[in-house]
């Protein structure tokens, strides 16, 4: 009895996978549960395991190729079994109804990753339902009509002029559009180089016969030559980031709350702890993670997920922490962060970040977060706004902690301060709700002894 090997959904959000490396050759004997291949998902490199015993008779995906979830990747059978019929169906993803294996895998995955994960199959990805996955893989960055290197846009009278940084009066814009003039080609004579009516008239008089010539400006892009650039196909993780964050900034009505916290006592505490020995050393980030987790446990209204037809408020606090890797952003999760001791958080944060960079995270380590934190302080960023990681209700963006002159009791004093900005999904969090959460967070960070209470 033959066993099909499918490209499995190895992460809850995975829609396609790149087969990095086969670990078994055709003809090798394999056992159920044994690793067959390494597959790059949208988050990590995972192992694709055998779901049956036998001989790996056929490998149907080449190393380095990407295939949608559900694609037949290989066949395991007895040495002499006829597998021609099975192999003939390769190349297309299994039909939705006839692909029990991936579904089963997804279901298993869901259990391990926590109830919050929303598994999604390639066929169900929103907005792409009609696009065959195969074509999606083949789609490269938009090619020019001629197929060669990107050619400059064809010149002509009716091209919508790019309006980028050109200053122009409303009248000038209207006249330019009526006459088919590209505003970039017109020299402005008004204040700050503003293009006004007389400039349009002069340009029209000068280049009435050849608006296309006028469209060429010094700033027009030069045709790139080979060697000036190198192309890289999008990795799965980049695609996922684009899709997920695009989803986020679009439909999520986000607002931002910024507050500056005093870190004097955090610094005192760290110093005191360090003096007790290296094993008690914690970073500012560790304290901020702990404080955020504790604040979340006191504000379940912020510790929530938007599930389209309902809001899910979580009793447990699973704190996502954005980690930059060479391949891009990933958000490992500190489970039950509010109940963990500072030392545990410190150790776990360090370990998760390390394994994220090595791309060794297991799916359950980067799914199921109920709220996220992003810290760009180490890059000297004063403050920033982070994009919400859906379906979460918010994300906290932490800036750099630095010494600043502030006024305390009417006196200028030097204090260590940090700026945090909370991005809130207004569908869940109202302004005052977010503000109250930040109030609690401020109390905890400015009085870190409360974290041991």
């Amino acid at each position, binding site marked *: 009895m033959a066993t099909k090997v499918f490209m499995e959904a190895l992460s809850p959000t995975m829609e396609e996978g790149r087969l990095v490396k086969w670990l078994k050759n055709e003809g090798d004997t394999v056992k159920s549960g044994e690793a067959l291949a390494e597959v790059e998902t949208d988050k990590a490199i995972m192992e694709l395991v055998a779901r049956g015993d036998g001989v790996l008779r056929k490998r149907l995906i080449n190393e380095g190729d990407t295939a949608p979830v559900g694609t037949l990747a290989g066949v395991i059978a007895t040495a002499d079994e006829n597998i021609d019929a099975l192999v003939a169906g390769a190349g297309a993803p299994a039909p939705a109804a006839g692909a029990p294996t991936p579904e089963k895998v997804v279901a298993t995955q869901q259990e391990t990753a926590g109830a919050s994960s929303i598994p999604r199959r390639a066929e169900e990805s929103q907005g792409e339902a009609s696009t065959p996955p195969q074509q999606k893989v083949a789609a490269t960055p938009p090619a020019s009509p001629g197929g060669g290197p990107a050619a400059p846009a064809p010149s002509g009278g009716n091209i919508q002029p790019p309006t980028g940084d050109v200053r122009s*009066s*409303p*009248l*000038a*814009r*209207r006249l330019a559009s009526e006459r088919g003039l590209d505003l970039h080609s017109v020299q402005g004579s*008004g*204040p700050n180089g503003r293009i*006004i*009516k007389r400039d349009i008239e002069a340009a029209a008089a000068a280049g009435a016969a050849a608006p296309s010539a006028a469209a060429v400006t010094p700033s027009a892009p030069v045709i790139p030559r080979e060697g000036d650039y190198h192309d890289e196909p999008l990795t799965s993780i980049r695609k996922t980031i684009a899709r997920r964050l695009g989803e986020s900034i679009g439909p999520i009505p986000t607002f931002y709350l910024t507050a500056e916290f005093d870190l004097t006592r955090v610094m005192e505490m760290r110093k005191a702890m360090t003096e007790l020995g290296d094993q008690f050393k914690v970073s500012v980030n560790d304290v901020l993670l702990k404080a955020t987790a504790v604040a979340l446990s006191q504000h379940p209204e912020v510790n929530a997920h938007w599930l389209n037809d309902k809001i899910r408020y979580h009793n447990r606090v699973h704190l996502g922490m954005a980690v930059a890797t060479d391949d891009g952003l990933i958000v490992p999760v500190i489970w039950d962060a509010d109940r963990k001791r500072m030392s545990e958080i410190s150790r776990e944060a360090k370990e998760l970040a390390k394994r994220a960079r090595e791309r060794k995270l297991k799916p359950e380590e980067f799914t199921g977060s109920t709220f996220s934190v992003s810290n760009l302080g180490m890059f000297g960023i004063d403050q920033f706004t982070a994009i919400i990681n859906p379906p979460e209700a918010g994300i906290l963006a932490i800036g750099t902690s630095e010494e600043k002159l502030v006024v305390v009791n009417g006196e200028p004093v030097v204090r260590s301060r940090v700026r945090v900005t909370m991005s809130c999904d207004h569908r869940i969090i109202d302004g005052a709700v977010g503000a109250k959460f930040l109030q609690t967070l401020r109390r905890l960070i400015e009085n870190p002894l409360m974290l041991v209470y």
Partner: protein
Amino acid sequence: MPVITYRDALGAAIREEMQRDDRVFLMGEEVAVYQGAYKVSKGFLQEFGEMRVVDTPITELGFAGVGVGAAMVGLRPVIEFMTWNFALLALDQVVNAAAKMLYMSGGQYKMPIVFRGPNGAALQLSAQHSQAWESWLAHIPGLKVIAPGTPYDAKGLLKSAIRDDNPVCVLEGEMLYNTKGEVPDEEYLIPLGKAELKREGEHCSIITHGKMVLVALQAADQLAKEGINIDVVDLRTIRPMDVEAIGESVKKTNRAVVLEEGWEMCGVGAQVVDYIQRDCFDYLDAPVVRVHQADTPMPYAKGLEKAAKPDLPKAIAAVRKVMYLD
């Protein structure tokens, strides 16, 4: 055509309407025996008698209220304020009674009343007596507000105001009373709510009203010597405002200066600019520039007063600015 003063044009308007309709009467401080603080009602007492030319005590709220009551029972009062600065005391009757009577009586009471008097700064009358009130009055639904700048307009508009069944505030000018202009002997009316193009030009519009019309015309004269031709739009009526005339001019010239006597904040000019940005956005070649009184109580000191008032040099500078010439 006879040339007469603005003051006589106003007097002629009231006299003609009083002769034409015996429901019309004039009431205010010093209008009868003294023949008007600015002699608008010269000879009125002799001609019409003390039933129709009524001197009042110095009680603006009181006689404005008597006027409102008279209008409610079918008379057509013309209430003279010695200046609109004093009319502040009467604003309850103007704003809360006259302006709202038709509305709050469900149409049972018409309010054919005219409130008139000099508006804006004259010379060294200091902060309390040098104010332009048009934006206050024009703010109120139920009021009509006119500000004639010439004798011809003063007569034609005031006659229409007296015949109108709604309360009309007439903003005259102390410095205008002695100005002269052609006014025909035969009767004419100027409809309320119609602006007039006082000068035609293609380079820039000046939109203005009242006393500033003369300043705008002088600016147009001077700028014409430099080859800059100004469209001078005299609103004549502040409320209802002739939006079409503003649009027509700005769409032709693509540039506008709004000139007024009052302060900047929430001024008539702010409303004009709003109409322009709404209706003429795609026709604008430069941001609209406003000229107005400095944002301060009017100084008494002569030099400071001059510095605070909108005037010819400021109007010309504004045109040059909006033309990108400076």
